[in-house]
């Protein structure tokens, strides 16, 4: 009898890329559902449209690169990128911008570097930033949260707006949309209005923007699920949220009328989504534990800096991309001390 031979270990492998990606997608669902609940069907339409585009682009790239298509599409990494992009962009983003963004993410940010595992930048965030700087109007036209929305759109109306650009009768963009809480906050702070005054507006809930804080909660829940499943480690989210919270609280303490309180930063905008789903993207983040702490803390710091003094209200995408650039260097200088080696490693 002859047996097949392979090298050790011979165990059944508990993990797979597909399983990992599916777990992240699963963990994203509560937050995504909350986004749909608060910001309408457009979010769902964007998720579907982005996913289809991502899979098509991935398949196209594999065909062009003369590689097998199915195993790569089947790893669900492209779908995950698409979903992350879709929950980050406005609900009524014109369809061609979604297609453009996702195609850019998959073809130019991911596949051009060699596909999964080789991209130095987070594809979803790179696409988000591309669109934000190229189409600032469309990318900042957010709907009000459900409780403030006087003109909720049906699924078909949303689809019609997205695919044809035609608004329902009697509505225009100005009545339909409003500034995001972050935009509203920092625009008014720039106009030297007092924080206490700004916070009397109906836009605000207990911690952050109404609706946003709840979507944030559900992203947090998904993140805790990923931690429990050990898909991600605590280092990046904790250091990112921690540094953002600490520095925000410090400034708020120094001037309570000019700087929003710490929880505002956590529960508004894309902070929680970013902390658990974006910054933890293993491909583009730091991999050493010490490096991850530094990486996360730097993102938190950058988010605060860009939000407070920068030109764009939300800053997670910029902060993540900036730190993506630094990740390899941070990794190099934060290698752990190997077993049996003296001192605290190569510093």
């Amino acid at each position, binding site marked *: *009898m*002859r*047996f*097949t*031979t*392979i*090298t*050790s*270990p*011979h*165990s*059944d*492998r*508990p*993990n*797979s*890329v597909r*399983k*990992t990606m599916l777990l992240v997608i699963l963990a994203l669902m509560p937050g995504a559902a909350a986004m749909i609940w608060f910001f309408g069907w457009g979010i769902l339409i964007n998720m579907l449209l982005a996913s289809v585009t991502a899979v098509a682009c991935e398949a196209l790239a594999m065909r062009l690169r003369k590689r097998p298509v199915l*195993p790569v599409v089947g*790893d669900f*990494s492209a779908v995950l990128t698409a979903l992350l992009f879709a929950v980050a962009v406005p609900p009524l983003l014109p369809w061609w911008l979604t297609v453009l963004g996702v195609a850019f993410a998959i073809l130019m940010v991911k596949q051009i570097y*060699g*596909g*999964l*595992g*080789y991209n130095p930048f987070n594809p979803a965030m790179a696409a988000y930033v591309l669109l934000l700087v190229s189409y600032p109007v469309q990318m900042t036209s957010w709907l009000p949260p459900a409780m403030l929305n006087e003109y909720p759109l049906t699924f078909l109306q949303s689809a019609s707006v997205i695919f044809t650009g035609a608004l329902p009768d009697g509505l225009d963009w100005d009545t339909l949309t409003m500034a995001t809480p972050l935009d509203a906050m920092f625009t008014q702070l720039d106009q030297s209005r007092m924080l206490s005054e700004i916070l009397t507006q109906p836009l605000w809930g207990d911690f952050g923007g109404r609706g946003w804080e709840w979507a944030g909660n559900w992203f947090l829940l998904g993140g805790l699920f990923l931690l429990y499943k050990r898909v991600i*480690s605590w280092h990046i989210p904790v250091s990112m949220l921690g540094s953002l919270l600490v520095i925000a609280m410090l400034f708020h303490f120094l001037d309570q009328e000019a700087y929003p309180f710490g929880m505002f930063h956590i529960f508004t905008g894309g902070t929680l989504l970013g902390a658990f789903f974006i910054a933890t993207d*293993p*491909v583009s*983040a730091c*991999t*050493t*534990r010490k490096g991850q702490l530094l990486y996360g803390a730097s993102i938190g710091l950058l988010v605060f800096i860009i939000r407070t003094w920068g030109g764009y209200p939300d800053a997670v995408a910029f902060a993540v991309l900036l730190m993506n650039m630094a990740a390899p260097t941070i*990794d190099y200088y934060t*290698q*752990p*001390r*190997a*077993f*049996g*080696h*003296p001192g605290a490693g190569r510093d």
Partner: protein
Amino acid sequence: MSKQKHTLYRFHGGLHLPDNKSQSLKLPLEQVALPKQLIIPLQQHIGESAEPLVKVGDHVLKGDMLAKPQGYVSAPVHASSSGTVVAIEAQPIPHPSGLRADCVVIETDGKETWGNQLEPMPDYREVDPSLVRERIRNAGIVGMGGAAFPASVKLTPGQENPIHTLIINGAECEPYITCDDLLMQTQAEKILLGVDIIRRLVGAERCLFGIEDNKPKAIEQIQLAVNEAGFDWISVIAIPTLYPSGGEKQLIKVLTDQEIPSGSIPAKIGMLCHNVTTAFAIAEAVVDGKPLISRYVTVTGNGVRQPRNLEALIGTPVAALIAQAGGYTDQVTKLIVGGPMMGFTLTTDQVPVTKATNCLLAADSHEAPDPGPALPCIRCGRCADACPANLLPQQMYWYARAKDLEKVQEYNLFDCIECGCCSHVCPSHIPLVQYFRFAKTESWAQEKEQRAAERARQRHEAQLARKERLEAERKAKLRKKKEALKKPVRKQPDSDVAGAEADPKKAAIAAALKRAAEKKAKLAEQGIAPKNQANLSDSQQKAIDRADQRRTENQTDAVTSEKQGE
């Protein structure tokens, strides 16, 4: 005496694996029936192969030495049963390479007749340690935890690092394997005798006996035996079940919080680590005079009908063990020697059990699936989390793939113990350990090549230097010669002697003239004149004188002109 409380420490990483140990412990230990042929490899240990002492046709008895050690790091091999040597030739052996190696093949006679056994030493405490050490060496005992390093070498510690702590490894952390567990359950007293012998040989003050806590019966039996023997210097310590706690470095870390310095051995920090089975074999050799000719082997996995532990003679074909475990099931796909994490696969069961064979895992496609194609690394870092050596496997993988050996060594490649944790957890199913083995082999090859190149360069330089030296010597000689020749030209000879010294031709002429003149004078003295010159007329005499004069002048001229023409 009750169990002492012992502080335990943790190493980085490690895995909780499904241990799959119960399957092989359901049936009691059994002897493997004597096979028709025993195939005994000459090299069953790390180091030099043993040198055969027998030839084809010899009749050997059980326990006879078949081959003697060659060199210091080597071990003898013995006949596991009586019979006739029918061949000494290359046979398939259990080795990851699948290559053949020299073996002594014995056709057994079924009589199991013992040969001249070694003298039992029940009073080993009174015996000179050097004799005990020699006994262990002659009994062919090697480390039986898997590495198969000759035991006697480890028992001869250097003076510079005195051993204070003896570590006995009863962790047996690989899934499926239970032979050490069963040995501890059934042979506790003898194991402790072996531990005592080792302790005496190396002069250790205490012994930490580490057993993973998934072996409660073994812990109980060993503790019982310790109490009975009154060995209060042994601490039996239950350690958490976490793969690879049975790795020497990890075990020492867990028990003592000390790390063996990279690239060093436990002796460096005053420790010595031996496996329980080695201790048992040492006791058998010293106390009973039995050389290492058999061992416990776990035969398990979904690929055999009756998983169990067997005591097999060294040299028994693996197929015989499988048969005794009920034969293969239909699901068997792989045959693994050792555990699933570090063992290697066999292509055939026509290989013998060796001193290092602790487990035969006949696995089905669920237990040991084919890994399928590797996907790209997504840098998730799980490998680094799992690595007990606290390395960064994904970085090492990257550089190993790029064949950047320098870089991969910078990431401490040689601290990798090849435990397989990183490969096991990798979601992309990248065979990381294989890359690291590859990088190590390449590094060794490169080092060897560099050494060879260095030697060649030195040889070449020496050759060039020799050529240059010879050339310089030749030139110096020539110059000397030229100078020697030039000297007389510069100043004219001022005397005949000086001239004679300088020119042999002139000297010969001068000598001839002198002889002629002397002869003439002698003759004249005696009053003898040449007859042809007697009675010469004046004119005749004058003519002769002129001729003489001319001759003299001519000769001088000739010499001078010759010189000037040089």
